[in-house]
């Protein structure tokens, strides 16, 4: 047997760098150095961050490295539209077809090394492989073959019909470069291996059930969808889609930066959330309530520590690690020629977005405005970009956007999380119904923000009860109180919440829910005179306080009532008065018109000798008791001049309302007045006795003889 076949196999299996490829060795060494940094520094660091998509980011970073390796070994892919054609044969070797000057065939072998064959060598290798049934796929990951039918702007990859479970990372790295996918609808199962191509061309019977799945997938991921009848025509058609926005033209540097920006954006968001809480605690600490002071200080210190020692530290560390890494990546790309900043729309927009993401924490800051302005101006001058630049700049400078501009923004295809959230915000602002927003959110699979979860939950009301409930609860847990309010509002007739679920709402600070439980406990405790032994008392006040903080008037009143009861039925401890008044005042501020409450307020203010306020409360209330107290005030001249006539009129009102003591006081005062009149009359006749004494005794003497 001719041993030449063994020579060819040996050549195919070679894992050494050839002398004429020494320049490739240099860049491969740089890549290895980058890979080492990523594996040993960046990835262990990312694992520490609490972002739930961190493992996805790690995978994407590894994919970037794999793809760079491919570019190094197969520069014919760089800068071209990559068309992937999925063929039914699941055992074939993937082949990259490209226009080639040399006419050589190049295998990427299992040692991730290139093995170059002339046409004759290739033909001999393949014919012997067929003859001796040697599976070349066991020795190579894929082949790059010359093909004159290809254009200068595109390459075509023949992809065997891959089972979903094929894990070969080198092949999957290749597939992820595909921009336009040509696929039989039966190949739908493997769609996720292609990392969202910009266009899909299916060549199948459009009545095939998978066609609908493909269309839905394309709609969801903003992918152009075309249907052609035959495989060949589909490939030719795909060749015409040269003006697509090719992901592969976005440089690796930008893609890496965008991924790292996502982590920084997450950390910034966490920091802002903590800062808000920190500020709220600080504001509350200004009001010295010794009960909460220690707790709030402890929690405040924890927030502060987390912000400084964890989040800030992580952010700084991430920036340090990545700046070194990005520099290495940039050097590699300069050698590859993929960092060429040409007029390509996708790359510039992506670069702008990455820069914006990098610059901004969560919201625009004054010192960043100039940078954005200059970047926007740079884009504005380029043909075809002005609309997009306008949209971006206007957003950051808070100018109104037209719907057309919103649409333009929505069409930008980038991998920036930061921009995606801007799109959602804008759409929400401009769409009549929130359906579009929800679809965008679902499409982007970014449920990071509580308001997104709320939006989805609200969207599913009347469509899918369980899903709606799930998202609204998730939004509530993420801090969106509006979700809890909505859940409560529809708890009876729609969501049919269980008692436990209602309790969750109460414990998550939803005022109405807290009042529900507070009121239940109040009624039970009231029957027994608000006993303080046992947990119910404290639970009651806790829930009433939570509801009160949400400005629920009845909760404030009931809490005040509990303390009023303790005051009036107990030792009338004056220290309780400010507590009761506090609750009632807040209820009043919130708009309570409860007359009993106002009467009690007046009574307590009187106790504190704050007659002015007491009088105002009584005048508002005008209950029997209030009228009586007003009578007392005018009778005694508490905070006002003594005015018997006014006092009498208040007593009369009280009497008409059924106040017993008012009658007594009325009689007394009236008698006093009458006696005083008599004395005045008598004094003109120089009466010995004082008027008041005489008139009152006289009156009482005669009144006892009323029957006479």
């Amino acid at each position, binding site marked *: *047997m001719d041993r030449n076949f063994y020579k060819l196999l040996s050549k195919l299996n070679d894992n050494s760098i050839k002398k004429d490829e020494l320049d490739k060795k240099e860049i491969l060494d740089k890549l290895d150095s980058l890979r080492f940094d990523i594996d040993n520094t960046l990835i262990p660091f990312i694992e520490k961050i609490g972002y739930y998509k961190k493992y996805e980011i790690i995978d994407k970073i590894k994919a970037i490295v794999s793809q760079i390796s491919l570019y190094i070994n197969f520069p014919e892919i760089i800068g071209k539209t990559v068309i992937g054609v999925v063929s039914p044969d699941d055992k074939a070797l993937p082949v990259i077809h490209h226009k080639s000057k040399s006419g050589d065939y190049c295998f990427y072998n299992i040692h991730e090394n290139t093995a170059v064959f002339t046409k004759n060598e290739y033909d001999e290798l393949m014919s012997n492989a067929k003859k001796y049934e*040697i599976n070349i796929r066991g020795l190579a990951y894929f082949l790059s073959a010359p093909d004159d039918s290809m254009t200068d702007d595109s390459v075509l990859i023949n992809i065997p019909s891959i089972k979903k479970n094929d894990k070969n990372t080198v092949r999957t790295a290749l597939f992820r470069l595909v921009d336009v996918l040509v696929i039989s609808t039966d190949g739908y199962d493997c769609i996720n291996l292609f990392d969202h191509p910009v266009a899909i061309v299916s060549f199948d019977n459009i009545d095939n059930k998978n066609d609908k799945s493909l269309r839905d997938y394309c709609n969801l991921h903003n992918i152009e969808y075309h249907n052609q009848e035959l495989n060949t025509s589909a490939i030719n058609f795909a060749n015409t889609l040269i003006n697509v926005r090719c992901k592969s033209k976005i440089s690796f540097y930008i893609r890496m930066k965008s991924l790292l920006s996502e982590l920084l954006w997450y950390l910034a968001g966490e920091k802002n959330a903590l800062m808000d809480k920190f500020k709220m605690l600080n504001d509350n600490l200004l009001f010295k309530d010794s009960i909460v002071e220690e707790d709030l200080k402890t929690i405040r210190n924890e927030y502060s520590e987390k912000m400084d020692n964890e989040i800030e530290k992580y952010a700084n560390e991430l920036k340090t690690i990545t700046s070194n890494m990005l520099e290495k990546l940039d050097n590699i790309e300069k050698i590859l020629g993929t960092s060429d900043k040409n007029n390509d729309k996708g790359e510039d927009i992506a670069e702008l977005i990455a820069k914006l993401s990098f610059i901004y924490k969560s919201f625009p800051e004054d010192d960043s405005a100039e940078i954005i302005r200059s970047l926007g101006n740079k884009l504005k001058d380029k043909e075809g970009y002005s609309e997009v630049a306008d949209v971006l700049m206007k957003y950051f400078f808070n100018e109104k956007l037209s719907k057309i501009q919103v649409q333009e923004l929505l069409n930008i295809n980038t991998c920036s999380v930061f921009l995606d959230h801007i799109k959602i915000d804008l759409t929400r602002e401009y769409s009549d119904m929130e359906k579009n927003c929800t679809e965008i959110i679902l499409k982007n699979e970014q449920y990071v923000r509580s308001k997104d979860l709320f939006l989805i939950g609200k969207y599913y009301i009347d469509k899918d009860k369980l899903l709606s409930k799930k998202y609204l609860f998730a939004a509530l847990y993420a801090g969106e109180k509006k979700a809890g309010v909505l859940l409560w509002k529809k708890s009876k007739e729609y969501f049919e919440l269980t008692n436990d679920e209602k309790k969750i709402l109460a414990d998550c600070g939803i005022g109405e829910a807290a009042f529900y439980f507070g009121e239940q406990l109040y009624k039970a405790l009231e029957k027994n005179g608000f006993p303080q032994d046992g947990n119910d008392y404290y639970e009651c006040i806790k829930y009433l306080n*939570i509801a009160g903080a949400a400005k629920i008037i009845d909760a404030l009143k009931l809490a005040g009532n509990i303390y009023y009861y303790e005051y009036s039925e107990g030792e009338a401890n004056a220290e309780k008065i400010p507590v009761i008044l*506090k609750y009632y005042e807040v209820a009043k501020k919130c708009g309570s018109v409860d007359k009993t409450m106002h009467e009690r307020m007046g009574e307590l203010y009187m106790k504190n000798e704050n007659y002015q306020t007491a009088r105002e409360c009584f005048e508002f209330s005008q209950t029997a008791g209030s009228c009586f107290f007003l009578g007392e005030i005018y009778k005694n001249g508490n905070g006002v001049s003594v005015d018997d006539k006014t006092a009498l009129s208040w007593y009369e009102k009280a009497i008409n309302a059924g106040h017993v003591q008012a009658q007594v006081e009325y009689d007394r005062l009236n008698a006093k007045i009458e006696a005083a009149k008599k004395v005045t009359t008598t004094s003109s006749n120089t009466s010995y006795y004082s008027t008041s004494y005489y008139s009152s005794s006289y009156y009482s003497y005669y009144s006892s003889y009323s029957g006479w």
Partner: protein
Amino acid sequence: MALFEDVEIVEVNSNQYLSDPEKGLELLKNILKIDTQNIINVKFEAIVKNELFPVLANLNLGGETEIYRKLLKLCDKIRETSKLEFIDKKCTIGIGGGFSSGKSAFINALTNVSLPEDQDPTTSVATYIISAQEKKNIIISNSNNFFEADDDAIEAIAHQFQREYGLGFAGIIKNIVVFSNKFKYENIAILDTPGYSKADGDLKADSLDFEKAAEQLRAVDYLIWLTQSNNVIKNQDIDFIRSLTNSNKILFVFSMADLVTESDLKQKIDNARKRLSEAGIEIYDIIAYNSKDGKTVIGDEVLEKYFDEIDKKAKNKKNLREQLDEISDEVHNLVNDKIKKLRDFSQHIGETISKVHDPEHIDAIIDVYSSCNSQISTLLERINDFDVCIKKLCDEISEK
């Protein structure tokens, strides 16, 4: 070179695969065949990475990195020992070390098999040695094809094929499994790995070797690390060992002890002990061994004690399902601890709220209370999601 000690070394030409090129191609064909039945089930790994890891990240437990590593190790194990039921219940001891550190000679001396000792990098293949009633060799290709090979095939693959035809099997063959009736430990599988570095020892330049060796050694239960006696344990050795995150103590062996005097060996061992301790590496012991004679020069009985202990532990070794259950229990314990702490805190804050008499300035404390209870509810939901993922993984293991 003989595979088993009772067979004489034979001339190359009598090996059928070397004397007949077409037979050689037949061997190659069998090794390269794709058996779709044996495609590694990567669904386990996909579920772990795409579903379980995000849930774990969301649980935000603090000890999560360790759990993540354990799950990755389980994936490594499943990937490496997929379909190898005969290894599943055994404790694997990986023999690691740089290129030409004497690993194969050491194993030959211990196990009475005859692995090739002078493989060049193009031919070296990771080999399992396990105890069995009958001698047998199985070749496992990268496409997970299983092929029972005769002694001639193993001998040819070792390095003769490279010499005869210019074609090496490193990278083509994933593992060789040698069933030996002379290896006495029934519950142990020894893994002989290729060196993690090339002869020139540049770590970065050979990251693929590094990665392959690391992948295999991460999946083992115990590690024995070899260094030539006339050498030292290098920094790159220590870095490599650290990257394996093996939780068991490591036995270090200075091999080819006949090359150095005993006093020098003692000095080397003392220095190594100090360096390794400073590097935070847990040491079982450090010995010096002469593979030629099959004798321990320094550290008598340590080896036998080491193997006996592992053999005993192996009897209680958990299978994959049990290991997964163990990880699940660990996560549940961490979550339960966290929930308990949150509940205690919520109780305390709730009592504080009930004592506050200022409804206008209570927002912050209520916010803290709400946040605490939200975290509890979230954890309870997410642990359900975690359990769903674990169930999927258990179903995958059962199907295997």
